[in-house]
């Protein structure tokens, strides 16, 4: 099976490991991710703060490209790109005037009916198809992850259908359970990491991330699992800084969902490029694997 794939800027740069893992994992599960041609930046959270028309227009062009290429479904692993594109689609649907304005500048016009999926929805389809259990060859019973959704996976600035519980989502927990990993319950699933504030207002972002970290530790977690590259980079790259500032001694690796699923499907940490974390991610996976073999 083939579906359309929008990687977005992060997955082509600082989070290139997420791009690689997504393609590898889904290919093994029987879904080929076909990158849509000549896509552009979705505008992320910035476009809406600078110009609202642009915030709809930028993802609109990508929707047009995917539709013209004949895709019925496009998967967007980055939570921010997913949110922006989903919201843009909804606004174009509800506002024909806006749609005409935007379409007049586009070579490939937005029609409708494209299904925009988060990475969790595509995993869910695989669970339903029975593909996950069958392919899960490695056990990681010692992994105690807390699933961190952040903001963009479940909360939207516009009314769109949300495929998960808004306050207590279960998507990542379900995906992990399907490969035999039991996630811990905790309070900060949908708290905010501060996003771009890590760069432009570090005091605020560090205080938010320290609260999330403390709760994860209190629950006895040994890692975070995320879907959003922004959350991943923030919790990973700034972990030393915010932990030092708030007197936290422990450190936790921050895995992409594709990384943990990939490991359970039998990919070695190096193949998954788990060595590209700021907080070491390979040791824990290797230790747990050895432990299972004993």
């Amino acid at each position, binding site marked *: 099976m083939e579906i359309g794939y929008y990687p977005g800027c992060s997955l082509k740069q600082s989070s290139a490991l997420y791009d690689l893992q997504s393609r590898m994992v889904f290919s093994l599960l029987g879904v080929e991710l076909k990158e849509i041609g000549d896509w552009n930046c979705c505008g992320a959270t910035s476009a809406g703060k600078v110009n609202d028309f642009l915030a709809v227009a930028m993802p609109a062009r990508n929707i047009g490209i995917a539709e013209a290429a004949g895709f019925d479904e496009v998967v967007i692993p980055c939570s921010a790109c997913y949110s922006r594109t989903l919201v843009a689609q909804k606004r174009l649907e509800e506002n024909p005037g806006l749609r005409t304005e935007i379409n007049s500048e586009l070579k490939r016009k937005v029609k409708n009916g494209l299904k925009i999926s988060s990475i969790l929805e595509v995993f869910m389809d695989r669970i339903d198809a029975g593909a996950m259990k069958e392919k899960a060859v490695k056990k990681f019973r010692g992994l105690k992850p807390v699933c961190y959704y952040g903001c963009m996976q479940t909360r939207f600035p516009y009314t769109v259908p949300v495929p998960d519980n808004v306050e207590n989502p279960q998507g990542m927990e379900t995906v992990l359970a399907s490969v035999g990993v039991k996630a811990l319950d905790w309070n900060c699933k949908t708290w905010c990491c501060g996003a771009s504030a890590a760069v*432009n207002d570090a005091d605020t972002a560090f205080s938010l991330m320290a609260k999330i970290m403390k709760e994860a530790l209190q629950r006895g977690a040994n890692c975070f699992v995320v879907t959003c590259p922004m959350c991943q980079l923030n919790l990973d790259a700034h972990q030393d800084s915010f932990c030092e500032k708030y007197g936290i001694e422990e450190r936790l690796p921050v895995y992409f969902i594709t990384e943990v699923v990939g490991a359970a499907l039998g990919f070695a940490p190096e193949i998954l490029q788990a060595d590209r974390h700021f907080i070491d991610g390979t040791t824990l996976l290797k230790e747990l694997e050895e432990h299972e073999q004993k």
Partner: protein
Amino acid sequence: MTESAIEFSPERTTPFLQEVMERSGQMLTACYQCRRCAAGCTVGDETGCFTPNLLIRTVMLGDRETALSNPLVWKCVSCYTCGTRCPNDIQTARITETLKKMAKEEHVEPMMPKVKEFHDAFVESGVRWGRVNEVEFMGIYESKAALREAKVKNYDAIVEEIKAQARLGLTMFKKKRMHTGFLMASGRREIKALYKKAQEMTTIDQ
């Protein structure tokens, strides 16, 4: 003390309130000050008592100056928690975003200039190449900040900022998280045309 706590003048209030409502698409007048938004605001610890409901009341009272310059407008991280929980579906993040734009149009000095510089730099980079190049974008952002500090001769701040970013940049490089190639979309002309259109339509946010 005979000073009244709030001042209300309809002449001043109505046009401002209407503009914010129209541009943000949020029905501010539906707010009944239940403070559910305040209870869960992500940046509550950082903004003191300036909670979303207070921002809404400020706009309703027509206090333009405070509405454009307060900790919530500039510290709001657009997490959408308040809007998801509001019984009246009011998305305060859409209001803070609108107020940031209005502040810019009215040349009000942003309370947190770095926030504005960040988003401006991001859009600049995205529109220029069709895709955002992280290294270029951080460069634009840092130079905007440096230029502002240089204007007030605050050279220490520039040095500190460069040091901090260089430290992060170096670790990113070591971890192979820094991308050195260049991304662009060949259809960026379409994006530029849309951006031009967008600028002509600045007052229609919805």
